[in-house]
């Protein structure tokens, strides 16, 4: 198979399994985001792909070749580190040319490639500057260019944008995605920022405690989260308990939601419903009745917090469909069954 496949990879540090029996196929040319809270094993997995950590078990296969034990410097990859790891003693040009210099490429070819890459990252004419004199965003670009100098098969990035401020980070996400699509390079990014993952990835892999919890396209992860953890980690969600009686009728917080289908045999489950799917109406006409406890008007969106049955339900609306509610008011909450996803809790 063309692309990267990770077969039952495990990495143990003593008794602790940082990565626990992970299997993942990354098709050639795709953009994968490893997403999860800190300590979930995503960086360890990336470092094993790079060869910087040796797996305790399992295999890593790149384009049909088993690279599990191949030393890092013999793998065809480019990596961007969280700290960027630009060589402080070299200029921008020498940093980018490092991989070419190591392989003894002629000086002329090196200079040509450096110019090509610098124009790709919009930093033409920066070749002779010391890297220490660059801004955060510029250093970021240089690190990307350096990793791509040899047109590697795999492009790995470990929390690459975490050092940038919010605006620049959003811009770089778009830029990075466009660059990846232009080059068609297989890319794996480690991040803990779900917005970043949603912006860039073809495939989002949510990890927790060393295991893959769900691997799917971003919108599918958002719409159909596999479990409560994923639902909560990706975006904002309402997690509500649902009960099913013997006849298969479901009820949420004591209010019947007849169209909601729960897996047969379960009596108790959890549903996830996104705030933008929750609608507010007049009391008695919704699924549930509750009291508005807070209204957060952000201009672009309006968040309403409603307390019902001991839980706080968040509803998000745009100003156009502005819900005319005030704190303390009783409202009806509509939970459309088609937007409710039953998740493992």
């Amino acid at each position, binding site marked *: 198979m063309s692309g990267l496949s990770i077969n039952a990879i495990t990495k143990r540090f003593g008794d602790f399994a940082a990565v626990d029996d992970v299997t993942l196929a990354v098709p050639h040319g795709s953009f994968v985001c490893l997403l999860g809270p800190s300590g979930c094993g995503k960086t360890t997995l990336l470092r094993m792909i790079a060869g910087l950590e040796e797996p305790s078990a399992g295999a890593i296969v790149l384009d049909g070749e088993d690279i599990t034990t191949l030393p890092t410097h013999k793998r065809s990859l480019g990596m961007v580190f969280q*700290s960027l790891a630009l060589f402080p003693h070299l200029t921008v040009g020498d940093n980018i040319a490092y991989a070419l210099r190591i392989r003894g490429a002629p000086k002329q070819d090196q200079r040509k490639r450096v110019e090509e890459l610098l124009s790709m990252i919009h930093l033409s004419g920066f070749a002779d500057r010391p890297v220490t004199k660059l801004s955060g965003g510029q250093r970021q670009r240089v690190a990307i260019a350096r990793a791509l100098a040899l047109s590697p098969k795999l492009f790995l990035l470990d929390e690459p944008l975490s050092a940038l401020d919010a605006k620049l980070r959003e811009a770089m996400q778009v830029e990075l995605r466009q660059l990846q699509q232009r080059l068609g390079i297989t890319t794996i990014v480690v991040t803990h920022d779900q917005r970043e993952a949603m912006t860039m990835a073809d495939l989002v892999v949510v990890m927790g405690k060393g295991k893959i919890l769900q691997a799917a396209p971003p919108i599918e992860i958002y719409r159909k989260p596999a479990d409560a953890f994923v639902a909560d980690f990706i975006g904002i969600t309402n997690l509500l308990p649902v009960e099913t009686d013997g006849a298969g009728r479901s009820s949420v917080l004591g209010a019947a939601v007849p169209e909601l289908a729960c897996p047969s045999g379960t009596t108790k489950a959890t549903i996830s419903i996104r705030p933008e799917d929750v609608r507010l109406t007049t009391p008695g006409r919704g699924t549930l009745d509750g009291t508005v406890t807070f209204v957060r008007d952000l201009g672009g969106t309006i968040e309403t917090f409603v307390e019902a049955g001991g839980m706080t339900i968040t509803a998000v609306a745009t100003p156009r469909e502005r819900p005319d509610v005030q704190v303390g008011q009783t409202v009806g909450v509509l939970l459309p069954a088609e937007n409710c996803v039953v998740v493992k809790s």
Partner: protein
Amino acid sequence: MRREPPKTAADYAPLAFPALMLIVFFVVPFSIMIAVSFFKRDPAGFYKPAFVFDNYARFLSAFFGEVLGFSLMLAVTVAACCIVIAFPFTYLLTRRPRRVQTLWLVGLLSVLSLSEVIIGFAWSTLLSRTAGITNLLVAIGLMDQPVALLPTFGAVLTGMVYQALPYTILVLYPALVRLDPTLTEAARTLGASPVRAFFNVTVPALRNTIVATLIMVFVFALGSYLLPQILGRPRHWTLSVLITDQAIYQSNMPFAAAMAVFLVLISLSLVGLTLLVGRRENAA
């Protein structure tokens, strides 16, 4: 973090004590020594105040030139050996678990507690024919009969490197600990083998630290006067040995002072030159 420069006299107050110490214990004695170097020797007593250049003139001979040259060469060699051994060692040490690092550092610190005399006699035993390490080599069949490895230049060098090594490691350690380990990892992902990454990333990234350490060990080795006498022949004696000899045994204080001043000037100019070259290269 950027601090405001001191403005009032009170801001300089913390410097008063160290400044006083430096003046009393360094500037004053050194000035006296400079003055003495121009005095005239009095064979009957000690010396007479005068202003003559005889002591410096006497120094400008082939013999003393050779000794000076040897002293500088020895100090440079010791410094180079120390860096070559200590840098990779410290680099590998910083990559070990914390506990292992502590054990090694405690061990190294304990070497510092040994006096130069003890180090000298320990090595003279170790390198001797009767009780030295060659007996071990004979025992395992690598040599036919034990030999004496001293007094030789190699013995002097070994002793001095042994003495200076802990200092070298302790000076290099903080810089190497702080070095971002992802620098070498980045080099490896770009196709450099671990050894190559060490030489063209780790070493150049710490160039300034290495130069500073070289200078420190150089100055340290320049002052050594016991080990060359214990482990070497008279032709391995350094200028420091001759200074001691003149000052203590020949009672020729003015000449000893002149040699000392000369040694200080030479080493200061060498250090200055190194820093100047370093700065120019950094700017380029």
